[in-house]
C-alpha cells in the first residue's frame, strides 16, 4: 500500500541542511544548543570548601582532648592506665628528642615504601596475566582472592622461621599482604572497562599491542589505582603487624617496634603517642601521595563524585 506520491508540501519549506546558508543556520543552532547544554562550572571557593571540611573535625578533636584533660584533672586516674594528653605529648617529645621517633618513622616508611614498590612490580604482571589470559584466571583467580582473605599477619610466624628476625621477614609479610590486592585491583580495573571501548578499538583497527597500550591500560587505570591504594593500606597494616610481632634480632627499628617497646616498658603514654604517629603517617601518605593522583585521574574522566573536591 504505497502512499500517494507527489504531494507537494503545503508549508513554507525551509530545508535547513542544504546550501551554505543552511549550514550557517545549523551552526548557529548547534552553538546555541551547545551553550545551553554545557554544564556551568560552579567553582565554590576551594579554600572555603577546604575550611568547611577541615574545621569541624578539628573542633571535635580539640573538644575531645579538652574533655580527656578534664577527666584526668577531675578523676586523677592512674597514669599508667589512663595517661593525660600532656603525658602523651610528653612521650612524643621525648621519643623525638631521643631520635627514636624519627628513626622509627623513617624505617617504617622506607620499608613500607620499598615493600609496596616491590609488590607493585610483582602484582602488576600477575594482574595483567590474570586479566588477559582466561585459563590462568580461572585457575589462579580464586586462589588469589583466597589469599586476600588470609590476614597477612598469619604469615609473620612462618616468615620468622624462614628468614629469622631480619628485614626479609618484614618484606615477605608486606608482599603477602599487598601483592594479591594489587593484582586483584588490576583485574577488576580491566573487568570494568566498558566493552564498548574495546569494540571501538577493534573498529578503529587497533592491533593487539595498540589495544593493550592505547585502550586497555588507560581505561583500566582508575581500577588499577584503587587497587594500588588498597595495596598500600594492606602493606602498611602488614608492616605494622610484622614490626610488632617480629621485634628484635637484626630487624630494623620501625613504628611497630616502637609501639611494642613502649608496651614492654609499661609506657602507655608512649603506646598512645606511637598510635597517633601511625595514624598520622597513614593519613599523610593518603593525603599527600594517593589523594592528589586519584583526584586528577578521576577529574580528567569526569568521574569525580559531586561531593568531593
Amino acid at each position, binding site marked *: 500500500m504505497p502512499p500517494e506520491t507527489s504531494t507537494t508540501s503545503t508549508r513554507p519549506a525551509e530545508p535547513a541542511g542544504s546550501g551554505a546558508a543552511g549550514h550557517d543556520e545549523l551552526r548557529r543552532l548547534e552553538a546555541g544548543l551547545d551553550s545551553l547544554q554545557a554544564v556551568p562550572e560552579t567553582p565554590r571557593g576551594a579554600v572555603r570548601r577546604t575550611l568547611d571540611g577541615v574545621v569541624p573535625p578539628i573542633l571535635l578533636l580539640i573538644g575531645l582532648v579538652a574533655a580527656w584533660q578534664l577527666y584526668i584533672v577531675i578523676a586523677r586516674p*592512674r*597514669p*599508667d*592506665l589512663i595517661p593525660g594528653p600532656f603525658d602523651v605529648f610528653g612521650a612524643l617529645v621525648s621519643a623525638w628528642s*631521643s*631520635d*627514636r621517633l624519627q*628513626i*622509627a618513622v623513617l624505617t617504617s616508611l622506607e620499608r613500607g615504601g620499598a615493600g609496596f614498590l616491590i609488590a607493585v612490580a610483582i602484582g602488576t604482571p600477575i594482574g595483567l596475566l590474570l586479566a588477559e589470559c582466561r585459563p590462568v584466571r580461572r585457575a589462579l583467580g580464586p586462589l588469589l582472592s583466597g589469599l586476600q582473605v588470609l590476614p597477612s599477619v598469619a604469615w609473620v610466624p612462618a616468615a620468622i622461621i624462614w628468614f*629469622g*628476625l631480619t628485614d626479609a621477614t618484614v618484606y615477605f609479610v608486606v608482599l603477602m599482604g599487598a601483592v594479591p590486592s594489587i593484582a586483584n585491583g588490576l583485574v577488576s580495573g580491566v573487568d570494568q572497562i566498558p566493552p564498548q571501548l574495546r569494540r571501538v578499538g577493534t573498529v578503529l583497527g587497533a592491533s593487539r599491542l595498540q589495544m593493550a597500550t592505547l585502550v586497555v591500560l588507560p581505561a583500566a587505570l582508575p581500577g588499577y589505582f584503587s587497587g594500588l591504594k588498597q595495596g598500600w593500606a594492606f602493606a602498611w597494616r602488614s608492616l605494622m603487624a610484622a614490626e610488632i610481632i617480629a*621485634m*628484635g*634480632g*637484626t*630487624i*630494623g*627499628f620501625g613504628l611497630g*617496634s616502637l609501639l611494642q*617497646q613502649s*608496651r*614492654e*616498658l*609499661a*609506657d*602507655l603514654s608512649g603506646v598512645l603517642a606511637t598510635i597517633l604517629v601511625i595514624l598520622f603517617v597513614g593519613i599523610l601518605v593518603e593525603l599527600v601521595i594517593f589523594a592528589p593522583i586519584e583526584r586528577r585521574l578521576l577529574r580528567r574522566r569526569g568521574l569525580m563524585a559531586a561531593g568531593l573536591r
Partner: protein
Amino acid sequence: SGAASAAPGPAAELRLGYFDNLTHAPALVGIENGFLQDALGDTALNAQSFGAGPAAIEAISAGAIDAAYVGPSPAVNTFVQSAGRSAVIVAGATVGGAALVVQEGIDSPADLAGALIASPQLGNTQDVALRSWLASEGYETSTTGGGDVTVAPTDNARAFTLFQSGQIDGAWLPEPWVSRLVLEADATVLVDEASLWENGDFPTTVLLVGADFNRDHPETVRALLKGHTASVAWLTDHPDEAADVINAKLTADTGKPLSDAVIDRALGGLRFTNDPLASTFPVSLREAVAAGTAKDGDLDGLFDLTLLNGVLAEAGGAPISAAGLGTE
C-alpha cells in the same frame, strides 16, 4: 576484680602469676609442694603461668591477677609509670644466676666490637645489666638497634637456637639458659653478673603484689608470704631434692623437663632468699635510665616489707631492710 571487691579481710581467691623458669623456683616449689595453698587456707590459690615480665605486669594492672613473681625491672617500671600506684614488692625470691655467654673465640670484652648480643627483653634486668656493662667497657648501644655492639632483645628459647646456629655472638641470659648454652651449645661465660655487684648479690626475682590488693587484703598477703617464706626455706634446706620438684612442675606446665646436668649447674648459680636487696634498686634504675630503657622516677614506697618482717619475726628470723624505699 572479684577478690578486690570483697570487704577487708581474707580474699576468696588469690590469683598468682609466675613463669615456668628456674629463677621462679620459690613459686614452682611453693605450688608443687603445696606450701602456698597450705598457708592460704580457705583462700583458693589460682596460679597462672606467664611468658614474660610485661605480660605479668599488664595482668596486675588490668586486675587479672593479684600478685606475681617478676624480675625487678618490670616491677620498677610499673611502679614508676603509675606514680607508685600500681604495685609493691613484698618480698625477694631469687638472687644471682645471670651471665654473659659468648661464642668460642671471644675471650675478652675487647673482642665484642661489632658483635650481636641477645638479651631477654628490652628493659628487663639482664638487658639493663648488659647495656650498662657494655657502657662501662666503652661500647655504645642503642635501644633502636644501632651502636658499637648491637643488643638484640630476643626471647630466651630463640636466643638459644640463634646461638646454636651461630647467628648471634653472645647473650646475657638468666638461668637455666646460661647453663643450657654452656652445656649444650659450647658457650663460654665471659661475665658473671655476680661479679658486677657488691657481695655478688643482685635480685633476679621478687614477689610483687597489686597495691589495691595489698591494701584490701593484708591477711591474704600475709598468708601468701608465709607460704613464700616456707618455700624459700625449703629450697635452702633441700638443695638435693629441689631439682626433682622443680622439674616435676616444669614438666606438668610445659611438658619439657630440664636435663639434670643443666638444672644442677643452674641451681649452683642461684640463691633463694626473702631479701629483695632493696639497696640495689636505685642503682639498677640509674643504669636503666642511662641505657634509655626507663624513665627516671621516685622509688619511695616500692617496698612494703612490714608483713614479711612480721612473718619472719614470728619464725624468729632477722628483719629485712627496705633501704629507705618503703615500710619495713
